[in-house]
């Protein structure tokens, strides 16, 4: 199976709009995983049925039984996260669920409650293709683990259906959710924009891709906003042997398509449609 992972370093470069479009173009020949679980937006364009919801549990929060508590203060002393107040209330926001307090409590007054951190869906999209996506619970941590769960589920679905291509929408940044979405990738598509910050973030996230020894291609979105930085990005791509897949202009049709809940190829039948289709064909050749 080929896994195409789309990431950007910086947010707002058009990553999700493009990934949803590639998923649309791939149709039933691809399975899609929305691994940007913090800001999962693919469903707004692919209109899935939110099928087979599963609760996803990960991590713990401490609970103190006030009746059993003897107020000895040991839990407060050992907690490195300032999660227990002087009147023995646990802050679920601060609690990391390490359970150190539970081990030192002489009155056995502390329980660890498993946290429901989100829901996971194996959905059918408006094309009747499969989208695996999640809604991260409010204030939840462990998004890296949920990313892994979404990806594994997507691989299982693809295997079951005999589908050879998995498209993954990754999250911004370089930390645990991104690392989780890169693991097992066969090809990385970097979506960037020609701004000082877009280029800066591209270089950082590419360093990560390089450390994983993955092949990558790059799409320069909104290339005409700053032709000077576009040229610098192109130089960077050739120095690093990153395939320059395509450049797209700054065009509000992308936002307009999104506002109507459409991918760009559904909204636009002209030049953008053609450009984006060409880029998808090129990605398929590259993998």
């Amino acid at each position, binding site marked *: 199976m080929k896994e195409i992972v789309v990431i950007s370093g910086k947010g707002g470069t058009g990553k999700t709009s493009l990934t949803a479009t590639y998923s649309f173009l791939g149709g039933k020949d691809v399975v899609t995983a929305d691994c940007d679980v913090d800001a999962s937006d693919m469903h707004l364009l692919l209109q899935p049925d939110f099928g087979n919801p599963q609760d996803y549990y990960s991590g713990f929060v401490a609970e103190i039984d006030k009746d059993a508590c003897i107020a000895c203060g040991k839990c407060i002393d050992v907690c490195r996260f300032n999660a227990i107040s002087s009147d023995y209330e646990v802050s679920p926001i601060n609690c990391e669920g390490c359970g150190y307090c539970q081990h030192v409590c002489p009155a056995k007054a502390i329980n660890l409650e498993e946290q429901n951190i989100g829901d996971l869906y194996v959905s059918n999209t408006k094309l009747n293709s499969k989208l695996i996506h999640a809604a*991260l619970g*409010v204030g939840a941590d462990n998004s890296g683990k949920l990313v892994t769960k979404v990806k594994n589920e997507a691989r299982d679905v693809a295997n079951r259906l005999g589908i050879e291509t998995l498209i993954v929408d990754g999250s911004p940044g370089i930390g645990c959710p991104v690392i989780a979405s890169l693991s097992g990738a066969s090809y990385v598509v970097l979506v960037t924009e020609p701004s000082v910050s877009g280029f800066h973030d591209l270089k950082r996230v590419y360093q990560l891709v390089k450390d994983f020894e993955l092949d990558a291609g790059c799409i320069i979105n909104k290339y005409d906003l700053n032709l000077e930085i576009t040229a610098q990005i192109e130089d960077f791509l050739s120095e690093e042997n990153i395939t320059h897949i395509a450049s797209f202009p700054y065009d509000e049709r992308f936002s307009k398509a999104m506002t109507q809940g459409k991918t760009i190829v559904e909204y636009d039948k002209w030049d953008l449609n053609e450009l984006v289709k060409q880029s998808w064909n090129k990605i398929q050749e590259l993998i």
Partner: protein
Amino acid sequence: MKIAIASGKGGTGKTTLSTNLASFLAEKQDVVLVDLDVEEPNAALFVKGDEVEQKEMFKKVPKWDSDACTLCGKCQEVCNFNAVLKLGDEVMVLQELCHACYACSELCPSSALPMVPVRMGKLQYSKKDNLSMVESRLDIGQEQAVPLISQTIDYVDSKFDKDTIKLFDSPPGTSCPVIEATKDADYIVLVTEPTPFGLHDLTIAVKTMRLMGKRFGVVVNRDGIGNSGLIDYCEKEGIDVLARIPNDRRIAELYSHGELLYPHISEFREQLEVLATKLSEVKKDVQ
């Protein structure tokens, strides 16, 4: 006063707003801008100053001392993150899974897992006139942003007095790094754009802020694209719309060059004035 600039979706203009607001407020008072988007820090591309201090940042992780270890297995038993594994006659520490709760280290009966520092990134403090800037930058390959964010806030608390306005440029998303960056703030400014993606991610950010019991308001960026869904939502939920920044290609171009906007675009400056007035009301309430 601490103000965090956050958003659910990436690329909605957090850094644009933070850097411009910081420079604008610093015309009249002491301000420190703190870049807590440690995975992809960009604020320093827009706000330059003279270096005051630079330091390496470390987190503590347990290190196995094979001579002291009696292989009792207590460490593996108490670790809720599967970060300490006893494999045969060895103990292995998986640093990236460790949350530095100290449980294994302090509960080890033979003190065989002392906590030792490992580098996770670096901090830079620079200053020009009234405007100080503190940036932390996670090393590539490090997965956890939270310890670096937390230590950066501690650093800022130790260096700046209560009267200095502290602006936290937060990471995107709604999970652990965002919670860490916003939990100490007196007020949160949520920046979003009036598109379905922007609205969807904002609703999750709003739920998170409400769960944390935070005061917050919304700044609409790229006002004019998309639809009225965002404004309708804010009205229905009784959320303050603090300012509305117009959609303008000139803004995107200036941003791409790393320029501040308000010196060039009067409508932008007007919106900053509106925002600054609202924030000074918040400051009175906080005091």
